């Protein structure tokens, strides 16, 4: 999509070469393409129009740079403006202690899950004993859901399954959290329509009672034009302090974020990227800008790799590979490293041009089976795969619930891999793994995209 926007822009601006300056007239067609791209990404109609006008104002009068295709020049202006807009404000949370956070939003936007995710993140950041309070008394079992997540993540929890008085529940939750010496208290609320007067009044009362330091709107990343109405009404009623954009592990382009940002001006603080409680990140405007324009998310991928791959372990592995004494034990360890980065699908989603693509059928299951097979071997067998005779293979297949052919296949592949390593051994580029890590480092530092 990015390519195609770039291509469209290049062809729309082709006749610009030698013209010297960008003008309203010679940019009209190109800006029409930009508008269409924004609308296709679910940016609100008016917001898209204003955005295009702003970009136009910036472009007009600029000299067409020598050596740069005018299309690229315009894409750069658009991208930068989008990053600027999306990134206005800070992702930092209020420094208050205890930090009180109120989560609000439409039905099914992901408030409960995000509540648990945020609490987990705060815990990681050093807040002591994060506490969650269940204020959704409407959706059946919503309180159960939060309680289960709280238990899973070892968070403090309070709710009341009898009371119908939401502000009172909030109050009691606050007291319980303070008694537990919580540094951070997050209030999960029921999904509500912005036009539901009673429910909006209820959450306003809750807000007045617990006096949160942060009021975060939780919005589905695939939200359409409705984003504008929702954001405006919630902001008017509750004075939002930030936005959490969820379900970004899908392929929605996330244009709603630009709409919400433009309408409320509140900063986007976090993004949800999966169903696991760890799938939650601080917001990065450049990534979302790329996504709205349809570019991949290389930076995220690189960072994820860096966060999760243990540097020492990687070095050790590289050394082993170089010496070609890589055994099945190492193979297993490496697979677990990759798994720490998230599901294969979410890794795929971050690669340029692959965001819409699917992990090949059964790849994830295949990996699980491979793991099961290796797990069913004795440590000795893992270190010396040549020990694996027919009867051992049968035992392993039975133990891992796979078939002997699968075990054989794995051993064959592993054999090929070892062969390859032996070939690489001692070559001029020994230490390929290290080199790869260096490359990743360089990409991260640059933070840019090819062709930009």
């Amino acid at each position: 999509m990015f390519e195609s926007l770039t291509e469209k822009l290049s062809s729309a601006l082709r006749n610009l070469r030698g013209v010297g300056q960008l003008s309203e007239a010679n940019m009209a067609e190109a800006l029409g393409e930009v508008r269409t791209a924004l609308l296709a990404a679910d940016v609100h109609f008016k917001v898209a129009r204003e955005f295009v006008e702003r970009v136009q104002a910036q472009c007009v009068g600029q000299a067409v740079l020598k050596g740069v295709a005018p299309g690229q020049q315009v894409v750069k202006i658009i991208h930068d403006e989008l990053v600027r807009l999306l990134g206005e404000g800070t992702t930092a949370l209020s420094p208050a202690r205890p930090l009180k956070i109120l989560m609000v939003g439409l039905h099914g936007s992901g408030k409960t899950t995000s509540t648990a995710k945020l609490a987990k993140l705060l815990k990681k950041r050093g807040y002591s004993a994060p506490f969650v309070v269940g204020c959704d008394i409407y959706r059946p079992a919503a309180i159960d859901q939060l309680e289960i997540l709280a238990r899973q993540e070892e968070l403090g929890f309070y709710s009341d399954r009898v009371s119908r008085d939401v502000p009172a529940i909030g109050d009691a939750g606050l007291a319980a959290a303070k008694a537990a010496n919580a540094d951070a208290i997050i209030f999960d609320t029921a999904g509500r329509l912005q036009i539901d007067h009673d429910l909006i009044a209820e959450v306003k009362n809750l807000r007045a009672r617990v006096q949160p330091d942060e009021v975060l709107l939780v919005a589905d990343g695939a939200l359409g034009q409705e984003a504008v109405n929702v954001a405006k009404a919630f902001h008017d009623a509750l004075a939002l302090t930030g936005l959490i954009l969820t379900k970004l592990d899908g392929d929605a382009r996330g244009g709603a974020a630009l709409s919400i940002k433009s309408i409320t001006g509140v900063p986007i603080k976090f993004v949800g990227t999966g169903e696991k409680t760890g799938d939650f990140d601080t917001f990065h405007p450049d990534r979302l800008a790329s996504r709205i324009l349809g570019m991949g998310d290389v930076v995220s991928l690189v960072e994820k790799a860096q966060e999760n791959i243990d540097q020492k372990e990687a070095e050790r592995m590289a050394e082993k590979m170089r010496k070609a004494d890589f055994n099945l034990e190492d193979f297993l360890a490496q697979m677990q490293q990759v798994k720490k980065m998230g599901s294969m699908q979410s890794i795929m989603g971050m690669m340029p041009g692959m965001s819409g693509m699917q992990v090949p059928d059964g790849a994830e299951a295949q990996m699980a089976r491979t793991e099961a097979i290796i797990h069913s071997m004795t440590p000795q067998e893992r270190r010396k795969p040549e020990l694996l005779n027919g009867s051992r293979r049968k035992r392993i297949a039975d133990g891992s619930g796979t078939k002997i052919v699968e075990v054989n296949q794995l051993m064959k592949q592993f054999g090929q891999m070892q062969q390859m390593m032996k070939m690489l051994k001692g070559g001029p580029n020994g230490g390929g793994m290290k080199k790869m890590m260096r490359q990743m480092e360089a990409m991260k530092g640059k933070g840019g995209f090819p062709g930009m």
Partner: protein
Amino acid sequence: MFGLFKKFQAGFAKTVSALAGKTAALFGHKAVDAAALAEIEEALYSADFGVETTGEILAEIKTAVRKDPGLQGRQAAELGAAVLARVLAGSEGRIEGGARPPAALAAENTTGCLVPPATPTVIALIGVNGSGKTTTAAKLGWRLKQEGHTVMLAACDTFRAAAVEQLKAWAGRLDLEIVASRTGADSAAVAFDAMQAARVRGRDFLLVDTAGRLHTKVNLMEELAKIRRVLQKHDPAAPHHAWLVVDGSLGGNSVEQARVFHKSFGLTGLVVTKLDGTSRGGALAAIWRELRLPIYFIGLGEQPEDLQPFKVGSYARAVFGLEDKQD
């Protein structure tokens, strides 16, 4: 069997008032000028109709204005509604058209020929996280029960914390039969048991609630295929309906959702939820254009009665702020 859903029709007025608010002012008795056309365009885009449908409607209105410069807003609205109704023609899903008649029909049928033995009509509800599957399962169960059918629910979302409890709570509240296990259990096993129970007890409908999954997750799609396989052990035609439950406040991504779910699971229709807000679910037009999946119901709230059959005429008129024509 005639008018299986007769009662539903009365409730549709609710959509009209919910959807009409914004466009009402636009289509008065003033002549349509350039400014009005721009506003119509904006209104259509703001309803998530997207480039294609917006373009088509706008083009016809423009042509009409060119022919008759005195064309009033109200007439333009009528025209727009007619174009939209044409675009959506054939998109009303009706359960009677299912692969197999409900068991109740078999019982009613006195001629005794060509009616297969009674097995439940199975409806599987699938979709992304939070789209409204569980609530729809409950509301639909209640509807069918109101119509005199016997219904069983299958709690196959064994993934999300407390999803089983959520459907159980609904079943208790609405007095519906349910087969459920616990979180973490094998969803296909639950589907199998539920189908078994529904057959043994001779229930008319089995409604299968499933875990939310983003359409981009292949491994979770595989789980759906497994649910289908076990249902088919009981009845090769099951599930007779596989409906994608789509959140009506989403934008263009719902088209992608439908496309992918359809490709990997084979959908037979849609339920569009959360149209009780100010969103108008325009993305359904794009889905219909591309995939021709009929829309069976729309969700208009969280109460059991807030599930209404989709009616093209009412919907198209509501979008343009026109009252529903009584039929």
